[in-house]
């Protein structure tokens, strides 16, 4: 079995889900003939036909609402947004409808839909193509927010997201789409939602991150290792609902925590993780909780984006600072 990239793993999971359940349909802009702007839906039209892979008119709010309606009828729509920056018109549908329909009808109508979107910077894309506003979605009750960080995780998490009976916003780190290859057996095994994954065990410091920043964070952990600091790396994977147990257990062991995300600092999801640590992990902490995040600026144009995105150096500086606390 050849190793595959993250975007190929997304494609594999979509094909698997469509093959095993004919209620699964895929729609969005350019997803059919063109196979999606990142080719995530490549080949699905040929294999599953035009009733199950549909190019919609160019309207994100529309196809998010379309997903709500068709999901309420028992289909399992997977809608693709070309870039996260264009999801904002869909926020109305996510907040006002998808997250509420089950609750407000007391379970009579449900919303088993998945909204997929590539997010984040680092690919020298035009303005509005590099945003990371996962915390907007994490604030919405009644939905799940899932962010894979590797090909295998993308395959398993996407399968679980599609099989899940509730709405899932599935954010794909586009910088990692083709960054590395991994063996991903097409065995139909879903990865657990609502759980963090410990990617690397350690005893001195906990690094909490998700999505694209997992790469820089693992690099930082390796560098720390050479300095004699054993960093534990946690991939949050499901931001909402948040598995605080795994994070608290880690910090109970290490006493130090750095949270890393690409999104802007203020009211970023790192603030939620830090607040949970303050609530339930305060007496395990030996040092302040640090956040390494994007600046509270507009996402710059590509020439400056590396200055915005947290690099390994900033993670290392924060980690070293925390190691000063005995």
């Amino acid at each position: 079995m050849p190793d595959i990239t993250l975007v190929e793993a997304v494609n594999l999971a979509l094909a698997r889900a469509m093959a095993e359940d004919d209620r699964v349909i895929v729609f969005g802009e350019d997803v059919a003939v063109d196979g999606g702007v990142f080719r995530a839906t490549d080949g699905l039209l040929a294999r599953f036909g035009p009733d199950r892979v549909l190019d919609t008119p160019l309207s994100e709010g529309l196809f998010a609402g379309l997903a709500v309606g068709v999901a309420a009828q028992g289909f399992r729509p997977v809608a693709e947004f070309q870039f996260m920056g264009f999801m904002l018109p869909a926020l109305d549908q996510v907040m006002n409808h998808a997250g509420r329909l089950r609750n407000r009808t007391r379970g009579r109508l449900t919303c088993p839909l998945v909204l997929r979107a590539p997010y984040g910077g680092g690919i020298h894309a035009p303005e509005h193509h590099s945003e990371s506003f996962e915390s907007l979605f994490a604030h919405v009750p009644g939905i799940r927010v899932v962010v894979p960080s590797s090909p295998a995780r993308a395959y398993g998490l996407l399968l679980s997201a599609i099989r899940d009976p509730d709405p899932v916003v599935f954010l794909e780190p586009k910088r990692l789409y083709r960054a590395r290859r991994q063996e991903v057996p097409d065995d139909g095994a879903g990865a657990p939602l609502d759980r963090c994954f410990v990617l690397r065990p350690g005893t001195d410091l906990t690094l909490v991150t998700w999505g694209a920043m997992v790469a820089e964070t693992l690099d930082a952990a390796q560098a720390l290792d050479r300095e004699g600091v054993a960093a534990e790396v946690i991939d949050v994977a499901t931001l909402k609902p948040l598995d605080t147990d795994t994070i608290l257990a880690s910090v109970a062991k290490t006493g130090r925590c750095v949270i890393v995300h690409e999104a802007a600092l203020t009211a970023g999801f790192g603030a939620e993780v830090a607040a949970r640590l303050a609530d339930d992990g305060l007496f395990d902490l030996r040092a302040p909780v640090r956040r390494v995040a994007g600046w509270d600026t507009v996402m710059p144009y590509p020439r400056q984006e590396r200055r915005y995105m947290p690099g390994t150096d900033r993670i290392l500086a924060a980690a070293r600072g925390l190691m000063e606390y005995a």
Partner: protein
Amino acid sequence: MTDRVADFHVDFTRFLAPDGTAVAPLPGFFDDPTLRRLYGHMVLARAFDTKAIALQRTGRLGTYAPSLGQEAVAVAVGAAMVDTDVLVPSFREHGAQLVRGVTLQELFLFWAGDERGNDFAGPRQDFPVCIPVGSHAPHAAGVALAFKLRREARAAVCVFGDGATSKGDVYEAMNLAGAWTLPLVFVVANNQWAISVRRAHQTAARTLAQKAVAAGFAGEQVDGNDVVALCHALRQALDRARAGGGPHLIEALTYRLGDHTTADDASRYRDDEEVGRHWKEDPIARLRAHLTARGAWTRDDEEALLTDCAARVEAAARDAQALAPEPAAALFDHLYATLPPALAGQRAALVQAEADHA
């Protein structure tokens, strides 16, 4: 050289004049029993309105959106649809909901702020009321897409107001319905007002029906206080949609005789003279006059109907109020299919706080 490449027209249809006389022979379907049934539905919808406003005034119901003067639109929608169709309403269509089998008690529960009012025992696939104006139009497209993909001879009906036609999502749904030939009938309940903004300020378009033209399908105007014309137009549109003929738009010209909601004071933006003029178009009086002239309605019939409607409404209001609120845990118990472990703590805290208070 210039060629005309597109041309369109918008028809207006009415069968009953405001005084109840037939201006054209009624379609065969409208026999006495049918007309009496439609009349009964409209009177029940108005009785619900009256009771709901009374309950709101005495603090037993939340903010309520009455449909006074628009009963024909909702009742025609309910009557023209068949059970297997799906209604995707806005918030002034309780007349349609009643005809489709939503119970008076469920309606009272909903407007009293109880989610159980949306768990209709009758039309299980109908959508509940939609408050964010126009945002339900894409849902109706999704429902219609489901019918089309499953090759089912069913149609969805989406109802919204004149104000909603200014919203992008409404046009987006119409555009999709046209592009994909969806079995979807849009009904614009043009009651001339969006709270305090009059129809003329909403758009420079001469009719709202013509908005369908840009989406690639036909729109028509119908006298929205003539339940016969509405039923007729709706049945034609629904039959066509179920047979694969695609979407249609009906602009029902009506008038909101009451306040926008119980939180509104319409005298701030329109005068009594205007409202008085529109009372002469009242859909209920119109059909009563027609039925009476046909010899199909008597004073006794009227009295019996009013008594029956009042009794049903009273009983339903009583039953709804007698129902104990759900337990506190209900806030959490319908949020997800299975409550995520991450929320167990919050749920327990709420339940505990409730127990401490008791």
